[in-house]
């Protein structure tokens, strides 16, 4: 059971801030490439932020909306990345119309496989059981590919074939940035429809009291498995775009390290909202990028970043977004009254 903290004012004091933040982030993301056009490395950073935002949203759909603590999002991300890299290498195929749906299917099927074991039992599983199950899966997969020569073992797979749409090859730069932004916006809107639907109301109820919902006639396990699989599909899509963009996929892109980073993105930005993880990725990746470039603190930046993350998670559980958005708005309203 997840309890959202923070003062919750009555409905009539409810002010809608989230759409303004969402719009501001979208406008900033649209303007950014034109502002950064002379610094290609920042365009690359921006593209990475967009791709990792998709991964962070996939985690937040599990935890922030549904109370499923998944440490396995990087597993779906990494496996899909490996699959598109292998298909490119062994079959010479990297067309976006086929490769990206393939990655989504891989993420969906793999996460459904995990859901079948971890979530679809007779009784609803505990948070610890699910988190350890997904963590073990991510760890085992990382170890497996680290020793498997066919997929490059510890070196991973480099020179991933470029993503193609017809005759156009997507290389790093503004074109890829816009592709990543388009995919993120579509995935965001679909997720937004889901979490604001009557299905989303069930998730919101489930997050607070699973037992109560079961006594109303909901088979909680099915709802959990569905949202977990959908989130796995988004993580798979993110993994494929990441592999195409970086031209590389390695064991570190599917293990507990990246899974934990996805958790931090969401918690830092603000879980239980879709825009919070995007903000979290932006802040963490940008701060990391600039701190790592400062000679004076180059060696210490992970410590500084760690302290910052710890402070936010410990003292502001609602994340950065919690400073601007009330708990009432994060939880939302689902009925036909408003």
């Amino acid at each position: 059971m997840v309890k959202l903290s923070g003062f919750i004012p009555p409905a009539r004091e409810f002010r809608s801030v989230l759409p303004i933040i969402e719009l501001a982030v979208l406008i900033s993301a649209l303007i950014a490439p034109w502002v950064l056009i002379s610094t290609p490395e920042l365009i690359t950073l921006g593209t990475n932020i967009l791709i990792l935002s998709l991964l962070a949203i996939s985690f937040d759909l599990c935890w922030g909306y549904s109370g499923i603590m998944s440490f396995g999002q990087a597993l779906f991300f990494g496996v899909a990345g490996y699959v598109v890299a292998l298909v490119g290498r062994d079959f010479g195929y990297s067309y976006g119309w086929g490769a990206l749906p393939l990655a989504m299917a891989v993420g969906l099927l793999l996460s459904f496989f995990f859901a079948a074991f971890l979530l679809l039992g007779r009784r609803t599983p505990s948070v610890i059981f699910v988190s350890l199950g997904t963590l073990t899966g991510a760890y085992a997969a990382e170890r497996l590919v680290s020793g498997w020569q066919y997929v490059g073992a510890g070196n991973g797979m480099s020179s991933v074939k470029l993503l193609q749409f017809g005759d156009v090859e997507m290389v790093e730069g503004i074109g890829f940035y816009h592709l990543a932004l388009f995919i993120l916006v579509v995935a965001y809107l679909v997720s937004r429809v889901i979490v604001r639907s009557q299905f989303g109301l069930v998730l919101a109820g489930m997050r607070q009291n699973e037992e109560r919902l079961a006594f109303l006639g909901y088979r909680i396990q099915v709802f959990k498995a569905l949202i977990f699989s959908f989130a796995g599909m988004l993580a798979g899509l993110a993994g494929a775009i990441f592999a195409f963009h970086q031209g590389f996929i390695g064991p570190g892109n599917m293990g507990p390290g990246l899974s934990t980073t996805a958790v931090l993105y969401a918690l830092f930005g603000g879980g239980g909202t879709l825009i919070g993880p995007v903000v979290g990725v932006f802040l963490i990746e940008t701060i990391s990028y600039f701190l790592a470039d400062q000679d004076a603190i180059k060696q210490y930046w992970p410590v500084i970043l760690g302290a910052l993350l710890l402070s936010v998670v410990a003292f502001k559980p609602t994340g950065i977004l919690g400073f601007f958005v009330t708990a009432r708005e994060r939880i939302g309203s689902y009925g036909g009254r408003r």
Partner: protein
Amino acid sequence: MSDMLVVSQLTKRYGTLQALDGVDLVVKRNSFHGLIGPNGSGKSTFLKAIAGAHLPSSGTICFNGQDITDASSYERARLGLSLKFQITAVLDELSVYDNVLLAVQASNSLWSLLLSKTRLTLKDQVMSALDRFQLADRADELAGVLSHGEQQWLEIAMALAIGPKLLLLDEPTAGMSPEERRITGELLRPIKEECSLLIVEHDLDFIREISDEITLLDQGKVLDTGTVEQIQNSTKAQQAYTTRV
């Protein structure tokens, strides 16, 4: 009058503790059945076993002619069993309206929920359920800001909104003022036309006023069962309670 619930030789053990010991109980269709007993007599355990929160160690539970002994709680809910918890379990971070909407939409298909097909069409049903328990004016408020008594009513409204054949109420008047208890009784009486009721309650005056039949539990066993008058005159009941039934 056929029987809605037939429980036979129900037992429940927690390690060495025998919480229920061969309980037999019958709830008739469209009747109110009270379950009374001293603290620790197994009333709430019995109710939870009926609702599916705990599977019994042995015995059978037959609901509306169907054996549900091994059914999960959501399967029982879908068959028409509805439970109101002893400790209020409204979803306090959701609005009052959304709490009832959750109950009303529980029978919708997944596809319908994803597409929010019934969001508008269920509005009247939700408002009517709230109106019945005097909560219509507070539909937009968060359930967490309601008073204790109002939360109890909201939970009964949710339990009733799924259209149950048998409603299980675990101490619906706990923590209520005398006025709220009186109103609760008035709100519950009309539901006899819709469903049967199995009610656990410590307030013996309340249960005497509302019940058609009463079963007395003590230490996990049925001490006596009968009409209100029979239980009032039961020496077993008088021995179990210092208070007159």
